[in-house]
């Protein structure tokens, strides 16, 4: 077996340019696979993780504000929208709802109201909150006081200053940044958090569009065993001014966009796979023609069909392994460097875990090997069936 493998390696070295072309083609295919799988998994996974980390089963937003909500929670965009606070009470009264808490979203504008760059300011109700609190406990072991704020783990001024006890002017009022949040992996990492106690003063300043008695959205927890989608449907049926999104539906708009991108990736990969398949087939057909006499000699001195098969499969496998490994390295590099150019990836902060990266590498490796082996299989089958005498006499 070792002798046959070393023979395969010698065969590979025979025409280095041709081998390099094959390795390069397989490498390109595998790198495209790694890149697209990483991209889709990163965006998909980030959306899933973000919705899980929010801690709510349901989000109720003003009618027509679903997209804006997803943009805030998933894409770190700054938006504001409002609805009447009474909607929260009506949601709380729906059967199956266990808890509700509201948030009010404000957008800072450096030149008009605030001493910080444009950012989301989230006012949350400390008494009912189950969204922000869990991420604050480790950093600040007390409730926030009026005039105090907490910066999200990646909010612009937290990143710039890297420290707390900084006074910032927000909507005409002075706030002291007293802590930073743990990373949530959602758009809230870029926000600044204050309590709803501060809202009256902010509204009085006239620098915001929110009016007294208005909130941006309601986070809902449902009772154990209750299907959030059922409660969401009930909210939409009974409250005309509100839309409801179950956890699994959060990010639907982005996922829809992603599906289109996935289609483009899939088409590209299918085309690359077909091209690679035919390239491998064409090159191995040429190899089969070139080496027909050698196969005839080997068959006449005792090689079985399985020996010929194994000999040439080993050659394909070595080429496939080389191409796939190079493709995984290049694709991983692209997924780290090039993906940053995609807004959708830049705005979703969650990275892939080691396990996810390994699985993508493994799937791409298998894909590259399959194309390589399948492409060469036809010519190799033909080679192994050659009659020794016919081949030797033909020479």
């Amino acid at each position, binding site marked *: *077996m070792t*002798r*046959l493998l070393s*023979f395969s390696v*010698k*065969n590979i070295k*025979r025409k280095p340019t041709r081998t390099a072309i094959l390795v390069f083609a397989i490498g390109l295919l595998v790198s495209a696979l790694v890149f697209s799988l990483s991209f889709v998994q990163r965006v998909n996974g980030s959306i899933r993780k973000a919705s899980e980390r929010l801690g709510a089963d349901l989000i109720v937003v003003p009618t027509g504000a679903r997209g804006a909500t997803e943009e805030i929670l998933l894409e770190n965009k700054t938006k504001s929208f409002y609805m009447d606070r009474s909607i929260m009470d009506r949601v709380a009264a729906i059967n199956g709802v266990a808890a509700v808490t509201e948030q009010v979203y404000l957008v800072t504008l450096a030149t008009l109201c605030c001493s910080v760059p444009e950012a989301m300011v989230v006012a949350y109700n400390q008494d009912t909150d189950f969204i922000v609190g869990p991420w604050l406990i480790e950093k600040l072991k007390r409730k926030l006081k009026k005039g105090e704020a907490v910066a999200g783990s990646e909010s612009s001024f937290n990143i710039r200053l890297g420290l707390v006890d900084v006074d910032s002017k927000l909507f005409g009022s002075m706030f002291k940044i007293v802590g930073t949040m743990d990373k949530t992996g959602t758009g809230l990492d870029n926000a600044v958090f204050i309590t709803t106690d501060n809202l009256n003063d902010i509204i009085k300043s006239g620098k915001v569009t929110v009016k007294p008695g208005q909130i941006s959205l309601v986070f809902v927890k449902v009772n154990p065993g209750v299907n959030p989608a059922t409660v969401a449907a009930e909210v939409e049926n009974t409250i005309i001014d509100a839309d409801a999104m179950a956890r699994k539906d959060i990010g639907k708009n982005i996922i829809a966009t992603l599906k289109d991108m996935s289609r483009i990736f899939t088409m590209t990969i299918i085309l690359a796979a077909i091209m690679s398949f035919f390239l491998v087939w064409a090159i191995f057909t040429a190899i089969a023609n070139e080496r027909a*006499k*050698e196969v005839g*000699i*080997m*068959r*006449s*001195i*005792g*090689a*079985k*069909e*399985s*020996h010929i098969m194994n000999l040439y499969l080993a050659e394909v496998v070595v080429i496939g392994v080389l191409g796939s490994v190079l493709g995984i390295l290049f694709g991983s590099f692209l997924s780290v460097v090039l993906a940053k150019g995609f807004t959708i990836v830049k705005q979703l902060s969650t990275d892939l875990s080691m396990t996810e990266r390994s699985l993508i590498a493994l799937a791409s490796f298998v894909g590259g090997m399959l194309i390589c082996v399948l492409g060469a299989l036809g010519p190799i089958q033909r080679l192994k069936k050659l*009659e*020794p*005498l016919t081949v*030797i*006499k033909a*020479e």
Partner: protein
Amino acid sequence: MGQIVLTNVSKEYAVGSESLAAVRGASADIAKGEFVSIVGHSGSGKTTLLSLIGGMVNPTQGNILFNGENIYTWTSDQLSEYRCEKIGFMFQSASLLPILTAKENLLLPVAFRSVQPSNGMDARAEELLRAVGLGDKINAYPAQLSGGQQRRVAIARAFMNGPELILADEPTGDLDEETEAEMMDFFLRMNEQQGTTFMMVTHNTDLAARAKTRLRMHQGVLAKA
């Protein structure tokens, strides 16, 4: 019964709409350890006869027995094992693999054996190369060897798996007279010392005369010379 028994063996090839008989009703009984020469003009069917005995082409009719077994009832893998372990082939051309050195060419049939020998094969390959006068060309590639040297590597390769039968198709065709005689001595030595059966096709009547049994082929018919 002999080691190789041919009974009314014929081989016809289709040439367009007609059939051409390369071998016609050949019969022979060759004992183990015999040295047989076969002479005949080009196209008389000598190579086809050797190919039939070597299990490389199916006869149109007749039986070929090796040690009492009809080789054409065997599977493709059994025929490969027969070619690998029982037979040593020498073709009209050297038929070496160009990317393997002389020694690696000798080791190739060893790689095809169903049971791999534990060790000693490298030493055997070197010993055989020395026996055919190529002790200084062990690691040379075929392209670095002359036609005669390549032919001698192919001769050495045929003995690598210790075959019971050597099928040699004009094995000394590219060799000068002196080397040709040396190779013939080598064959006779292997025949006497190791009991290897030889069936050697040749145009050279002097060489043929050194064989114990002499056969002649004429228009596909095998007869005693």
